[in-house]
């Protein structure tokens, strides 16, 4: 901006509210996948494991475990995988933790930038498409093993419902109607949700279902962390409703988790 003189004359692009386009122009080295991925990329960078999203009566719930793994080792016990994208949407990351966190940050800035420049929010559809384009930009790195596959969920103000989207590594975008999970424990979480999901679940019920699914993923998948009772770490759960993006307090997640634990120990010690 210092060599500004001509920066705001002419301004053929002054109506472009995209932060990603701006970054590509002003600071291309900060773009995802900007430096060519080395052919011998580390084979086991830290990976985030299981994130999921469930639609319920008031909107969507998003949950994730807190563990990142590098090969057979725990890389982090407290990683956060569900991020607030803006007031009405969230992004859950799975895959290579570094590029995924960076992508979540870029996505947040993209939405905020649009909102400030245009004076209004992108539609939920628009946000989902924008994320899909960002995942496609990461394709070269994904081919080297640095795969990023998020879940995107939000509250659609126009339709008055929660909606969720899953992605593949090419940026393919697929809307799911009821629930979805992503990451190494995703299959178990999805199976669990298949049995637990009901139409118009209340908040408590949806919270329980989300945590049961994380519980099952952690039970079956070595990469997924459940609750760490020694350190007092519990899966994170976020709610996105008409009134915004909110975190479920850790105490509440702990209570639900302990209830699940107690029920399972009593009723089905083998499962």
């Amino acid at each position, binding site marked *: 901006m210092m060599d500004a003189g001509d920066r705001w004359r002419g301004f053929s692009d002054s109506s472009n509210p995209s932060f990603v386009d701006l970054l590509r122009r002003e600071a291309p080295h900060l773009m995802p996948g900007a430096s060519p991925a080395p052919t011998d990329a580390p084979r086991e960078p830290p990976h985030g494991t299981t994130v999921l999203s469930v639609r319920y009566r008031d909107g969507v719930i998003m949950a994730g475990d807190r563990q990142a793994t590098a090969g057979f080792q725990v890389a982090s016990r407290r990683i956060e995988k569900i991020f607030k994208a803006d007031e009405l949407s969230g992004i859950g990351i799975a895959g290579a933790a570094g590029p995924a966190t960076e992508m979540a940050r870029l996505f947040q800035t993209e939405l905020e930038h649009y909102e*400030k420049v245009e004076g209004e929010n992108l539609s939920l559809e628009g946000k989902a498409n924008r994320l899909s384009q960002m995942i496609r930009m990461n394709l070269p790195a994904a081919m080297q093993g640095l795969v990023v596959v998020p879940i995107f969920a939000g509250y659609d103000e126009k339709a008055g419902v929660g909606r969720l989207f899953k992605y593949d590594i090419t940026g393919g975008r697929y809307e799911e109607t009821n629930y979805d999970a992503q990451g190494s424990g995703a299959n178990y979480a999805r199976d669990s949700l298949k049995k637990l999901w009901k139409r118009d679940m209340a908040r408590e019920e949806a919270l329980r279902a989300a945590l049961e699914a994380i519980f099952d993923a952690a039970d079956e998948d070595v990469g997924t962390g459940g609750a760490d009772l020694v350190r007092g770490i519990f899966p994170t759960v976020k709610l996105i409703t008409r009134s915004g993006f909110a975190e479920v307090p850790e105490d509440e997640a702990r209570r639900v988790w302990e209830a699940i634990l107690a029920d399972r120990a009593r009723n089905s010690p083998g499962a």
Partner: protein
Amino acid sequence: MPLPYYVSPEQMMKDKAEYARKGIARGRSIVTLEYADGILLVAENPSTLLHKISEIYDRIAFAGVGKYNEFENLRIAGIRHADVKGYSYSRGDVTAKALANAYSQALGNIFTQDIKPFEIEVLVAEVAESNGSKNEIYHILYDGTIEDEHNYAAMGGQADEIRRFLKDHYREGLPLGEALGLGVRALTVTQNKTLSERDLEVAVLDRTKVQRKFRRIPVEALGQLLGTAR
């Protein structure tokens, strides 16, 4: 080849400044006041769609008077500056001071190099964290002159009268309703009319909010706030 007319640099600058001042004087005014929980910005602006006040970043707001297309360009440039900086460093590293300096450079360059100067004044405000640091208000003029203001600031057509009025009536630590009432009275100090909620654009940088402190106050809430202050 005919020789170009000689115009002395003094004369040229004077003409440009006069031209810019005239343009600005035609526009309606904006006042900014520090109040108990942050910074209040009040503009006389009957349009609900074309804003004079807007959000730049977490703790930073922007206001402009004069020609809309010119300060709108600066506003967008400011958002770009802030977002790129916040993304490449961290959100805490985006400051009003750097932004105000950049505006000052840009306006200064335009004033000296272009035939037509920008007919605008802009204001950059940054609300302090609640750790005892101070609010910052920068006022940048059409020629790049930059001033930092305390407690209150005014710009636009009747800025001098408004400033005089605020000097006599401003008190520190006003609650929001009273600060708003004062701001509205200041805006009408040179006019015989009263301003209704519909003629106003009001926003605050509210220290008590989390992360993004900027908040517009909608017309309905304005009525209530002004009612309690009366």
